[in-house]
């Protein structure tokens, strides 16, 4: 067994164990942290395939941003885990069916391209990142752009749904604050001193 194979099996074992942990963990925060571990090990496996760009982007986007917000939400809500588990055995057949279906689909998709054609025969100077960029902006430019537009629409929709202006909300307008002049705030009045006579009397 070569070193790469050894690393692959080690990462795969950690990935599977943490993925099972995500589903079975009693504590939701633990589940999210195990999800992070699963993402990082998946990125490690992609690195073995010389797909550096995908691996680093997985960590950057999913570990660095998406899961942080996920954790953010999970930490603030109080989940009753017993209630959630109540229907576990009822849903098990359905979820097993869906799981098997997904596994079969993935095997079929991979089989059609040949399982063994993995990155081992690349010429020197081959850059997975460059290749990916070339494909995205030439052969797959329309699907890529359409996916981008769909994501943009979804993003704007999400913002539009949550953006409600309450009349009672107080907010500041920094431009207004910065442009304030002295004359707007202070009024200087010219008037004679009133206490002159009194001051003399005190002495």
């Amino acid at each position, binding site marked *: 067994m070569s070193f790469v194979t050894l690393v692959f099996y080690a990462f795969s074992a950690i990935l599977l164990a943490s993925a099972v942990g995500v589903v079975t963990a009693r504590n939701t925060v633990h589940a999210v942290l195990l999800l992070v571990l699963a993402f990082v090990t998946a990125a490690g496996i992609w690195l073995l395939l010389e797909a550096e760009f995908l691996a*680093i982007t997985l960590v950057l986007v999913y570990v*660095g*941003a998406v899961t942080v917000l996920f954790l953010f939400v999970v930490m603030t809500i109080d989940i009753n885990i017993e209630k959630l588990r109540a229907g576990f055995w009822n849903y098990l057949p359905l979820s097993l069916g869906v799981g098997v279906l997904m596994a079969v689909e993935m095997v079929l998709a991979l089989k059609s391209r040949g399982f063994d054609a993995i990155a081992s025969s690349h010429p020197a100077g081959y850059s997975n990142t460059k290749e990916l960029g070339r494909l995205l902006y030439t052969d797959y430019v329309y699907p890529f752009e359409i996916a981008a537009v769909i994501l943009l629409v979804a993003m704007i929709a999400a913002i539009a749904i949550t953006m409600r202006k309450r009349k009672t909300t107080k907010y500041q307008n920094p431009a207004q604050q910065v442009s304030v002049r002295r004359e707007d705030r202070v009024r200087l009045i010219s008037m004679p001193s009133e206490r002159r006579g009194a001051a003399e009397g005190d002495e």
Partner: protein
Amino acid sequence: MIEIQGFFGPLWLLVWTLAKIVAIIVPLLLGVAYLTYAERKVIGYMQLRIGPNRVGFKGLIQPLADGLKLMMKEIIVPSGANKFLFLLAPVLSMAPALLAWAVVPFTPQMVLANIDASLLFIMAVTSMGVYGVIVAGWASNSKYAFLGAMRSAAQIVSYEIAMGFALVGVLMAAQSLNLVDIVNAQQGGFWHWYWLPLLPLFLVYLISGVAETNRAPFDVDEGESEIVAGFHVEYSGMAFAVFFLAEYANMILVATLTALMFLGGWEPPVAVAPFTWVPPLFWLLGKIAFVLFLFLWFRATFPRYRYDQIMRLGWKVFIPVTLVWLMVMGAVMQTPYGYLFH
């Protein structure tokens, strides 16, 4: 050299890599220790105080005394805390701060792993640092710690976007994600360094760097006047010290990246005789020290931002500024004036 290599045989690569890692980590940790000393001295002088001056000559052994003191202290785990995560959090904070140094070049040859996408790697690794803060805040089972973690998570995620866009500008100008190539693209004197053509991105990166490392004036996650010490309020002894080390290691990392990407890295300001005699490493170290001084200067000068103002600055000022400048760069690069950005 050959004889030593022969002695280790097939393990040579492992031993040699470990030796290089030690050669990076040890000076880094020493730098962290003396950065705390420099911070206390610099801010002291700015506030007309002397700073630490009792331990050793001019207080130079103060960082070691502090370290020793922290090591002797007990690590108290609060009741109701999640013990495993409570102790894991400092590690989650420290590991990314050290891991990022794997791809940082110090001179064109002095780099542990000269990979193609080193800039992207650094972005990915530093984005994991936020977990230390969040996990610490949650595992402490304390209101103040939790508030600090919440503030910090939102702040770090927001400023990462502006920082990422600033880096896109750098990679457009250098046409590479490799840090060695980025520095090499800035050759030819300080007016070729990217701080000038990418001035808005440079400022955004520098300020976002302060916010990313949770330093004043953006240190709301530990704002001592509001939430005591934020996410690490429950930590003591070495567990606290590790958070502290991670914060300062991150500061040095951001300063190094600023020096590499915008201040010409190891390039001398003018490529003529007296400047070229100085070894490249010293130019880089000097620039890092300059950026670190800016960090300390900010802390001594500015009052802490209010939380909503931090968010406004990140989302409504920095992100539009970077996006506009990226558009301007992209447009100008298509014209004969494109050389301005190369």
